[in-house]
């Protein structure tokens, strides 16, 4: 079990709270809600240790486009980077919907 915390600058507020994904092998859940300040805060709880660099690279790429001032909690159960990005994009889409 490893815990990773990252912060990003934000360009706009997010309007609501969303929850996507599931607790299950090779999957993850993403809980996204408006952040208390003008920045984005990410907390990753992952069952697989030693992938901090990969997490940072996936999240860097996501926040280049997303730009929302959100607090995001990710509970990961060994998802691949592709699955993580897909769930983040699903959360971004749900928050806009």
């Amino acid at each position, binding site marked *: 079990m490893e815990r990773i915390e990252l912060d990003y600058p934000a360009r706009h507020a997010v309007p609501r709270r969303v929850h996507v994904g599931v*607790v299950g*092998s090779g999957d993850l859940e993403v809980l996204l809600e408006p952040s208390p300040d003008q920045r984005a805060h990410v907390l990753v709880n992952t069952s697989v240790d030693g992938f901090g660099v990969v997490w940072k690279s996936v999240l860097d790429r996501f926040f280049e486009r997303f730009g929302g001032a959100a607090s995001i909690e990710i509970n990961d159960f060994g998802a691949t980077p592709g699955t993580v*990005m*897909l769930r983040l*994009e*699903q959360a971004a*889409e749900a928050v806009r919907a």
Partner: protein
Amino acid sequence: MPPESSSVIHSRTSSEPRPAVHTLLRLRHVDELIWEEGRPDWAVAALELAPWVVVRRVEPRPRLWPVGIRGGLRPQRCAAWLPDAAVADFVTPEMLATTRAWRQRPCADTIPALALLDEVEAILQAHGYAGRWGPGGSVGFELASTLPCVSPASDLDLVLKVPEPLGVRDAAALWAALSRLPLRVDVLLETPLGAVALAEYARGKSVMMLRTALGARLVADPWLASAASALSA
């Protein structure tokens, strides 16, 4: 499916279960594996204890099965390819359920993921899924290989074959029944296009994640190819 008429898999009659993702394959010899990124010592050691690998969800290559090797520690997973002719035997999750392989495990009553399988079977039968489900993950691996690897804290991964569309209401009823068990159950619905988590499908939302041989994608209907391509990530 790789064609190879002389192999164990293809010499069986067509009415028997066929290997697919989640199927466990027994190796003839470790040296016949083609490793994707090197050959970790832990993987060779694990295969010496239990010469079983699991079919991964990627496109098969001609006469080669995409397989995963699991070690004793959680992050120990690696990918390889197994020539069709090097498969000594195979077991599908449904075969493990049909034979109630968990009843042969010593100490099963102290491990919830094994002890509750009779109850899981009753739930799936009551909902009309007899013969279409089976255990995957570490439970499937232990039942196929007979190597103890399920711990008292292990979750239970289940695979349910759903060739025809399943109603959200039926899915929600099944998920509610399984959620009442005193352990975490993770069910993958296997459709002809890939797999979707029962927990996610049962929510009845308009978008969900489908795991396919070409990667994960967001879809509206896990049984409809056109929806899958329209929303692919």
